[in-house]
């Protein structure tokens, strides 16, 4: 019975939210506010039970891991922002957070997004294995694959040149920059297409829920 009630509450709230597509209305507003409140409460309760209690309270107060007083103190200092005279103390915690995360990020991002990505572009323009693949199984897909390395290198160079402002973008340089711009547009278009795919998927999920789980039509 409780599952059935839950199902109908979810169905009603889905319809309330979708009603915004017709026009803004009090049902939509109700569902929106309810979501914000429930989400905030859920995250608060989950953070207590899954993080603060098992990672701080229990080891500190029941298992005697006294070193945890240090992170707890830093955490509590963040709340001094509510007391104007003591608010400067919260900067110590923020400094620790910014410092630690920056330290982690510099190495991680330099390795994953810079060095490895550059290494991945150091490829031969002509890949013999792809030619062998095409020779053995001629198809449009394998034919296109013959040019992927060339397109990768050509695209990288032209797009990088578009962001190189020490040379005036006119004549031949202008043409290279324009090709770079064109390839960027292709990238943005593909990105937008994928965004539409995701949005359609969200609609499919709600339609499956309403027609399948609620009405039982699917």
């Amino acid at each position, binding site marked *: 019975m409780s599952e059935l009630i839950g199902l109908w509450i979810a169905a009603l709230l889905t319809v309330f939210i979708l009603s915004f597509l017709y026009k803004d209305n009090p049902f939509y507003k109700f569902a929106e506010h309810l979501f914000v409140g429930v989400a905030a409460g859920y995250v608060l309760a989950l953070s207590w039970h*899954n993080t603060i209690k098992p990672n701080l309270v229990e080891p500190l107060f029941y298992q005697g891991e006294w070193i945890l007083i240090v992170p707890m103190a830093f955490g509590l200092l963040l709340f001094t922002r509510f007391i104007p005279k003591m608010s400067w103390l919260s900067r110590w915690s923020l400094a620790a957070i910014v410092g630690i995360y920056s330290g982690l990020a510099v190495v*991680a991002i330099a390795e994953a997004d810079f060095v490895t990505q550059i290494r991945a572009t150091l490829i031969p323009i002509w890949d013999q294995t792809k030619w062998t693949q095409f020779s053995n199984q001629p198809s449009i897909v394998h034919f296109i694959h013959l040019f992927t390395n060339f397109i990768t290198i050509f695209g990288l160079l032209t797009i990088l040149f578009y962001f190189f402002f020490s040379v005036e973008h006119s004549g031949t340089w202008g043409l290279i920059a324009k090709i770079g711009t064109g390839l960027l547009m292709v990238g943005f278009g593909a990105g937008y297409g994928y*965004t539409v*795919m995701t949005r*359609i998927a969200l609609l499919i999920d709600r339609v*499956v829920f309403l027609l399948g789980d609620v009405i039982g039509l699917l």
Partner: protein
Amino acid sequence: MSSVWTKINHLDKRWIYLFVLLAVALPLILPINLPLSPSGPVMSFYKAIESIPKGSIVLISNDYDPGSKAELYPMTEAVLYHLFKRNCRVVMLSLFPAGPPMSERAVARVTEDLPNLQYGTDFVNLGYKDGREAVLVEMGRSIRSAFPKDYRGIPYDSIALLKEVENYSSFALVISISVGYPGTKEYVQYAQGRFNLKLLAGAAAVSVPEYSAYYNSGQLSGMLTGISGAAEYEELIGRRALAAKAIDAQAIGHMVIILLIVLGNVAWFVTKGKKNHE
């Protein structure tokens, strides 16, 4: 004739919503069963799971919430099914607060088909942990330290499966099914290179442009993207389920959107030409 184009040009957007809704709903009611052929990244994902020894332990990080369930939940279910069929054991966790119920639901659904699986020996849900990148780095040292208890409140050391799990090196594969931050990108940046992980990704379609670079560079060993990726994967493992049902709806929905874009552009050019003529 031009009045038709003028009408299209000023079409109330609510008609467009209705067309798209019908385009999505009708194929779900009357399936077309469009053919599916797995793409390269999906094939790599499948082969990576097929290549690990039976009985291996695999980490699945379900970093999404119900808002992204449409694309990512079918992947979770399909990947779990594939791993369990290969007698692999699974440790699940989430860096998203609403992720753990997604894991629970998926495993409940899969164990309906494979009823002999036991919690604690075949699979474990460690639940959610706040801390984002810090959690990813800490797991490289000790997973026990990051997750002293599982999602059900059972202490780490009381769970049989976790006695074999110390850090990332205990896993044959790490699979990040994610929609945003923190997710696959952070796994690549903070864990893959540093701890030498064999990392697979399940991602929403919107993430493809970003994650394709990681796949091409070899930082991701395989990738499922969106409903299409999930449907192709379901086809490969021989279990057509949620994504296979949805792929028809997505294809027809896209066709309607393409048609509307073409119509809109033609209408704009025709009416613009008329204005210039006047």
